[in-house]
């Protein structure tokens, strides 16, 4: 029977809590289930010491999780919205990411910061952002953005077991997505991208909820005779250039799609690396599909109009394949 993203994520957390006594959940309201109900029932099952409510103090709770990770716990911290991660930036950027390095390898921060991002249904400018690009700029962090419930299950478990500070970005639009849980789900390694669909004419690089939109675009492109390969990055930092390179060597054309704004986005980094490392493979300019450079508006109609969608990807891909645009 199919389960939602939230249910499958909860199962992953439940299993990790049961598997490893050092795993602890903390965050605002997590004992009560968290803002989106991901941790519902886990405090009752594993105890409030393992699933710990915190005050609304993002700086301190991120620091507490970091300090606990230094001392052998594997904390999984929930930051309710990635927009609030701004309040925890000092800790994540200056401390969590640096402890191992500054100590010459003496310390480790095996911590996962689960947070939730993206626009859906009128949450307006401070609860809808896609801020992942800030974090891929920080050596020492790992940034993961799953594209489906089953992917999230495996990636979250891999992240918890990794040993580095991981920012685990869940897209709020995915929370209601349903999937069947396989018998023995694989745990995808962190840092490895996934070919979500094979193709030969153009590579659509996406992550998080945009992967599903890219898959729809690939369907549409197939109807027009264009075979699109969809690459689900899974991990934004470190970037799996090997898989990207293999795909680009096959298709020679790239569209990078993300919900975040284009300026300084993840796509900019990928485009630059393809441009320099895979220059000789390119048959067309690397093209990005991203949000216009404005905050996310409240009115759901405006939000919908702003977000990049299937047709934007289709248009970009067709332009590349048929040698138009640019």
């Amino acid at each position, binding site marked *: 029977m199919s389960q939602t993203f939230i249910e499958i994520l909860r199962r992953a957390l439940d299993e990790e809590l049961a598997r490893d006594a050092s795993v602890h959940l903390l965050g605002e309201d997590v004992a009560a289930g968290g803002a989106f109900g991901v941790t519902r029932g886990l405090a009752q099952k594993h105890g409030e010491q393992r699933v710990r409510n915190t005050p609304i103090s993002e700086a301190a709770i991120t620091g*507490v999780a970091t300090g*606990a990770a230094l001392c052998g716990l594997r904390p999984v911290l929930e930051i309710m919205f990635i927009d609030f991660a701004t309040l925890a930036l000092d800790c994540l950027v200056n401390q969590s990411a640096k402890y191992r390095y500054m*100590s010459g390898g003496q310390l480790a921060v095996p911590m996962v910061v689960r947070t939730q991002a993206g626009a859906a249904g009128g949450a307006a400018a401070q609860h809808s952002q896609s801020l992942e690009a800030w974090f891929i700029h920080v050596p020492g962090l790992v940034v993961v953005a799953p594209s489906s419930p089953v992917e999230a299950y495996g990636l979250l478990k891999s992240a918890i077991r990794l040993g580095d500070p991981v920012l685990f970005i869940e897209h709020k639009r995915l929370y209601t997505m349903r999937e069947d849980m396989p018998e023995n789900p694989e745990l995808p390694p962190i840092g490895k991208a996934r070919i979500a669909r094979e193709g030969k004419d153009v590579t659509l690089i996406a992550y998080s909820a945009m992967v599903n939109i890219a898959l729809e675009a690939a369907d549409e492109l197939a109807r027009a005779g264009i075979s699109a390969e969809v690459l689900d990055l899974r991990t934004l930092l470190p970037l799996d250039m090997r898989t990207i390179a293999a795909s680009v060597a096959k298709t020679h054309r790239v569209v990078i799609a993300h919900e975040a704004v284009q300026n300084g986005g993840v796509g900019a980094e990928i485009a630059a690396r393809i441009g320099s490392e895979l220059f000789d493979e390119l048959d067309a300019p690397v093209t990005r599909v991203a949000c216009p450079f404005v905050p996310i508006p409240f009115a759901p109609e405006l939000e919908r109009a702003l977000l990049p969608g299937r047709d934007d990807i289709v248009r970009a891909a067709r332009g590349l394949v048929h040698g138009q645009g640019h």
Partner: protein
Amino acid sequence: MSVQAPNAERQIWMYTQMLRIREFETRVKRTFTDHPGVIRGHTHLADGAEASIVGSLANFRPGDAALATYRCHGYPLVLGSDPKAMMAEIYGRADGLCKGLGGSMHLTDVKRGFLGTSGIVGAGIPHAAGAAWAAQIRKKGEVVLSFFGDGASKQGAFHETLNIASLWKLPVIFVMENNGYNVVTTTAQEDANAAAGHPLSIKATAYEMPGVTVDGGDPLAVYQTVGEAIERARSGGGPTLVESKVYRLSAHGNIIAPPGVPLHYPEHEAIAVFGKREEYEAALRGDPVPRFRGVLVQNGTLTSAKADELAKQVAAEMEAAVQFALQSPFPKNESALDYNFA
């Protein structure tokens, strides 16, 4: 709750540790003139805070942890770190405590319970609480000491953390070394409690935890005060805010200058900025290191000859540290890429 005073042997140990910190810091400072160009970047000295550091850490047990700020040379010395490796780290050498990747501001010695530092004022405070949370879960009666300056108590992280630590009854002791200056601003100029004439330990009342102010120049007083706080924390009584009043005898740090400009320690801000020469000279007269020597010699715990002998031993130890660090090779370029990911 009372803590038994340290015996004579322990007091001599404490005095020796104070001497070691002072001698180490003196050597760091002298490096700028004796070996120009050997130290790059920022160093911050704890001369004047030796009694507070040693008094606090004299209560430390294996399994406990300490975290501090960038003014961090004293703590690992007391906890048993090798001064050679420490000096090599400050000189940016391959044999450094952190292999040259951390430097003066980021000394770390995990084996000895020194979990590291933050160069961001106040940022290490929540990490100490996190370490204390882990200790609370382990249930072995271990505690965490969080060292920071008075300036850090103006940061949100301080206030957020004191709230959580108190709420969760975490075994953490917040040791605020109030040295009166935030670089070139006095505490009274930037702290509402200080401006109102209150001790900074009053901040603890907002977070329902004990707040104590102690003379940071008296190692035995600090030992007693921090010791009581540690006992309380070990027995599940939660955190304490200890304000330890010290006087920083050197300037905030060496000058910050572009590459090529020789670095040095400037004159203390009390004189250079505020023109309070008398205040500074009074602080020198109250220097805790000779002060504690005086106490120990006066009450017969230590003879002058023994004290001089100790000073000689410590000077030799730290000279050896300097020589070791000077001889230590620079890290290989490729080592800059180590330790980024697991």
